[in-house]
Structure formats: structure tokens, C-alpha cells
């Protein structure tokens, strides 16, 4: 399996972004189910005149799959076996395929309402820029571009070289004449990427799905970081603090604008 040759810096996907504000800080949920439900219905009262908002959260282990994954012939068996291994399987509304959540990952969502034409790229660019800004403060350079052999691959994968440490997806739903757009990212901060990839492959194997991923194309922010090593857990604490601090006030992410 080979990485996409199209991996590029964020400048390659730059374009119009929009300012965001924050509302909830970084929350820790007792289950990933609670976090996912909160994320999917967050911003339900937004109007197209409102500033988009960010939420971020962490939760215990779970494998979050796409709606098409839930229709695989062995889905029930895969769900049962993974739950027994401590990986409950949840179905999300946003696009893409299976992606693990764990205490070593950060979930970040950007929610906005739109009255007009849907522009897929704007949400991706803005959230990618949020993550780029967040990680630049801990000496990590983000490169955007699909890593097709990583799990849940997409054009807005973020990583270093051929290895992905974050992925983005979106869900659009109508609410009256407006569209509520949720752009979500999962960032692997510090975790055992071999195990994360094993869980994804185990799911598709048991569910009779065709997808597979390789840990050779997945990394975490801790390994992607340059500079002196940090003790375990410190990086997650730093990123949580930075995320809360930088998003409590309105931000214009000029890096993507």
C-alpha cells in the first residue's frame, strides 16, 4: 500500500475560511456515545446570522463507524465482538468510514448554519486551520492530503509525510430553509496506533467489509512532534489547555483565509 503522492501543505487547500467562536470548553464524557450525541445535536439553534461555534471533547474507547458500515452483513457480529473487547461500536451521521475514539484522541467539531449554497470546502478549511494553529504551538507541522491506506481516508487528512494523525468529515442536515453543517475532526494525540488500526481492521473483517488500513500510514501527534520528548499525558493536557484558551474568544483563522 502506498501513500498518496498528493500530500501537501495546508496552503495547497487554502481558500476562504470564516471566523469562529467557542462555547463549551473541552468536555470529557463518560462514554463516547454521550459525546457523539452531544456533537451531533450541538448548534441546533444556530441561524445563518450566527458565528459558527466549536466544541471539543474526549471520551473512553469506542469505534465510530459510518452509516454505510452499519449495513455490512456482519455488522451485528462485529459490534458484539468488539464490545466484548472494550470497544463499543457507534454509528455517526458524518461521512467516512470507521474511526477509533480513545482517551488518547481529541474530538473537535465546528457547527454552523447556512442559508445558501453548500460549500463543502469552507468547513474543512476552517477546521483544518484550527487544528494547524493548535498543533503549531507544540511544534507540529500539519500537511493536508489523503493517506489512502490509513483508516477513514479523505482529502482533508492531516499528518506528517505519508502518516495521518487527524481526519475530518461533515454532516449536513436541513432545518427549515437553513442547513446545519457540522464539520468534525478526530485527532490522535498520543495512543498506540497499531492497536487503533487493529481495531478498525478487526471490525471490517468481522463485518465482512472490504476496507483495511495499515499502521504504517498512521501516527500520533506525539510522534509527529519535533523537539524534546514529553512525558506521557502531558501533550494531551497542553492541547486541551491551548484549545480552551484560544477558542474562548472569537478567532479569525487567517492561516486558511
Amino acid at each position, binding site marked *: 500500500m502506498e501513500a498518496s503522492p498528493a500530500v501537501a501543505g495546508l496552503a495547497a487547500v487554502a481558500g476562504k475560511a470564516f471566523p469562529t467562536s467557542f462555547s463549551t470548553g473541552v468536555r470529557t464524557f463518560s462514554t463516547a456515545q454521550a459525546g457523539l450525541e452531544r456533537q451531533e445535536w450541538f448548534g441546533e439553534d444556530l441561524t445563518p446570522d450566527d458565528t459558527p461555534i466549536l466544541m471539543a471533547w474526549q471520551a473512553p474507547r469506542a469505534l465510530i463507524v459510518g*452509516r454505510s458500515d452499519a449495513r455490512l452483513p456482519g455488522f451485528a457480529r462485529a459490534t458484539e465482538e468488539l464490545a466484548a473487547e472494550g470497544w463499543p461500536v457507534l454509528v455517526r*451521521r458524518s*461521512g467516512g468510514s470507521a474511526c477509533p475514539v480513545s482517551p488518547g484522541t481529541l474530538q473537535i467539531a465546528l457547527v454552523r448554519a447556512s442559508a445558501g*449554497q453548500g*460549500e*463543502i470546502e469552507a468547513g474543512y478549511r476552517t477546521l483544518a486551520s484550527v487544528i494547524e494553529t493548535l498543533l503549531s504551538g507544540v511544534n507540529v507541522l500539519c500537511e493536508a492530503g489523503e493517506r489512502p491506506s490509513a483508516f477513514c481516508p479523505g482529502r*482533508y487528512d492531516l499528518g506528517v509525510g505519508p502518516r495521518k494523525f487527524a481526519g475530518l*468529515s*461533515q*454532516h449536513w442536515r436541513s432545518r427549515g430553509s437553513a442547513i446545519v453543517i457540522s464539520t468534525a475532526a478526530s485527532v490522535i494525540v498520543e495512543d498506540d496506533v497499531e492497536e487503533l488500526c487493529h481495531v478498525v481492521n478487526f471490525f471490517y473483517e468481522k463485518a465482512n467489509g472490504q476496507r483495511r488500513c495499515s499502521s504504517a500510514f498512521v501516527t500520533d501527534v506525539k510522534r509527529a512532534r519535533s523537539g524534546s520528548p514529553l512525558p506521557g499525558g502531558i501533550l494531551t493536557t497542553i492541547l486541551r489547555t491551548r484549545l480552551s484558551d484560544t477558542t474562548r474568544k472569537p478567532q479569525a483563522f487567517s492561516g486558511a483565509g
Partner: protein
Amino acid sequence: MATEIALPPDLWDAAANPEGIVANWFFTEGAGVRKGATVAEIMVEKTSFDIAAPADGHLHIVVGKDGVVKPGAVIGTVDGG
């Protein structure tokens, strides 16, 4: 009378992403659906669009799962009552 389930012509920017796919139908052919229920999911660039039934009635699928669509496409109909 049949009501078309048409993708909004400006649902996404076709210049940037020319085609999407019907990722899921959440009801089977001929099933009864209520106006506003999410009947289908369209996927473009890891972006999932919920498509709602435009009326109460029985669902008829025009573009099946994994079918390729463009903005404005009619993917199904709902026969009244």
C-alpha cells in the same frame, strides 16, 4: 400523484466536486414514509447530506445505493397517500 425527491441544485459546488454517490437508502422500495423523514444519504468528499422525504406516501427509488449523482438529480419519488 408522485412527488420527486430531488437533490437541491445548489446542494454542493459541482465545480469543485462534480459527483456524489447515494450512500444509503433508509427505507426499502415501496415503504411508507412521512414528510420530513430522512430517506437517503448522499456522500461527497466525506460529507454526508441527509435527504428528507418531500411528502407522505410510498417511496420509489430511482437511483439505487452507490449510484452516482449530481446536484439537482432526482433520486426517487414519493407516491401520495
